[in-house]
């Protein structure tokens, strides 16, 4: 077993042990924090597919996070106010049923990722970073002025949505649900990396010319990766909205896109558990540094700088040594 595998196992164990301890000690807030970390890890795991495997530096992933959030917000808002979402040409009612919300989040994120990807992938390098950022801003300003759904104020959902067989209001149950989704996505990612598609995408990042020369279209590979990536981040957005029982345009903001990227880089770009390590660290820093000083952003900034300058490969790289993505 490589050090990275051990590290990953330890992380996963921690994600089970810490909340379990919190339940025993009756520290529900620790569970809330852990839930936040798990959901952020999920959002970052989405970006990690585009960024880590496909090399797509998207500074607009908050778009999908926000779409997921608004999918939840809009459906639940209509459900709690008993007003139909639309009446024509056919009646659509709101819902508080998580699987339906997730479905909507996933479908809309996929469509958005497809369209944004189609346009953005024409560009490369710095242009790609900037055009994804611009799409993020477009959605942000749109959400701010979308008065039907609260504009800048966003929307509050009074009671967390339902999942069959669970009482999602109990923190540990909702946590379990989120963790399960994260684990499923990580398993999917692990398979994806070894799959023909993953191999091709990984090569498309390194040598697009080679991929073309063997009869594959790197652009299409990247577009599909971008869509998969957007879908996962979108799903995370729906869960995040449910955690907070609230959505607002800040979910679309470029700072948030930056934060998702930070999670990925902090944990280790392209590492399977990088997003998890990044999110856990980030939430912990936010919690503990924030408790110590009002100016904790300075220290967060310094830590990030240190990671970029001295700890290539992020935390995973630091703990597990250089690249160990292969057997």
């Amino acid at each position, binding site marked *: 077993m490589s050090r990275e595998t051990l590290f990953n196992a330890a992380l996963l164990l921690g994600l089970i042990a810490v909340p379990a301890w919190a339940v025993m000690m009756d520290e529900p807030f620790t569970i809330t924090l852990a839930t936040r970390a798990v959901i952020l890890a999920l959002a970052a795991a989405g970006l990690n597919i585009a960024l880590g495997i496909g090399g797509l530096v998207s500074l607009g992933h908050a778009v999908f996070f926000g779409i997921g959030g608004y999918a939840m917000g809009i459906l639940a808002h209509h459900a709690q106010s008993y007003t139909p979402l639309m009446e024509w040409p056919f009646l659509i009612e709101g819902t508080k049923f998580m699987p339906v919300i997730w479905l909507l989040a996933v479908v809309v994120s996929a469509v958005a990722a497809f369209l944004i990807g189609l346009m953005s992938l024409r560009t490369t390098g710095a242009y790609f970073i900037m055009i994804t950022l611009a799409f993020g801003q477009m959605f942000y300003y749109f959400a701010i002025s979308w008065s039907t759904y609260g504009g800048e104020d966003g929307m509050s959902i009074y009671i967390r949505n339902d999942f069959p067989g669970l009482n999602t209001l109990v923190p540990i149950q909702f946590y379990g649900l989120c963790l399960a989704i994260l684990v499923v996505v990580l398993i999917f990612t692990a398979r994806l990396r070894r799959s023909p598609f993953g191999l091709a995408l990984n090569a498309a990042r390194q040598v697009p010319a*080679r991929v073309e020369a*063997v009869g594959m279209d790197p652009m299409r590979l990247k577009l*599909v990766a971008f869509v998969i990536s957007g879908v996962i981040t979108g799903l995370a957005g729906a869960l995040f909205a449910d955690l907070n029982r609230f959505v607002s345009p800040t979910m679309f903001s470029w700072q948030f896109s930056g934060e998702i990227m930070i999670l990925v880089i902090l944990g280790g770009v392209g590492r399977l558990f990088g997003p998890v390590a990044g999110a856990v660290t980030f939430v912990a820093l936010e919690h503990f540094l924030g408790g110590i000083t009002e100016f904790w952003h300075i220290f967060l900034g310094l830590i990030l700088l240190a990671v970029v300058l001295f700890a290539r490969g992020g935390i995973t790289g630091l703990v597990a040594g250089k690249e160990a993505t292969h057997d």
Partner: protein
Amino acid sequence: MTETILATHGITKSFGALKASNDISIDLRPGEIHAIIGPNGAGKSTLIGQICGSLAPDAGRVELMGQDVTGLSTDQRARAGLGRTFQISALAMEDTVLENAILGAMGASGRSWRFWSAALGDRSLRTRAEAALERVGLAESMTKRCADLSHGQRRQLEVAVALTLAPKAFVMDEPMAGLGAEGSKNLTGFLDSLRQEAPILLVEHDMDAVFALADRISVLVYGEVIATGSVDQIRSDPRVREAYLGESA
């Protein structure tokens, strides 16, 4: 028409005032090695770019197996049967030798849209990739990372990846580049045996290899083909001597 596997008909490409390809018509017949030579800046890379699809000609067309492929993209041409190697190794350096070869097998068999099963676990892909690696003599190094290969091994892998495509025609851009005498000799021997499988359009600076391998040679100077013929014809062609040696005719 089945006599030619690959052909260009009057392709022309300008970059501003510079005519990098001027009305070039060449062809590649079954079982032959057709070498393209010419001094630096003669427009060889531009020509290859147009044949393989990374550059669009201003005029003229490219045919593969009698079909017009001028409008096709690089990957479509590859699927249609064009196998190329690059002048500077274009390999996924982070990946293993086997993975690079499997990449070729995947493209050829259209299996790149599988998201769940492991690429290395796919029997047919693996068989194909291993066979190609075996042929170029990299069977021992399959699990090595590309980045850890020697330069010569990378050149071999370039050829192996093209082999996995089982192409109708090879386009090789200076496969000997940077190889020592020994390496060149080995590769020359290998290419010699390859021509029966599929003809090779060979751009090469190593004249010993060219003269040893080529059935025909075309000489490219300032974007124009000034001569095409057998090795002996080319050796004695005064225009070629002028272009290379500056001797007046």
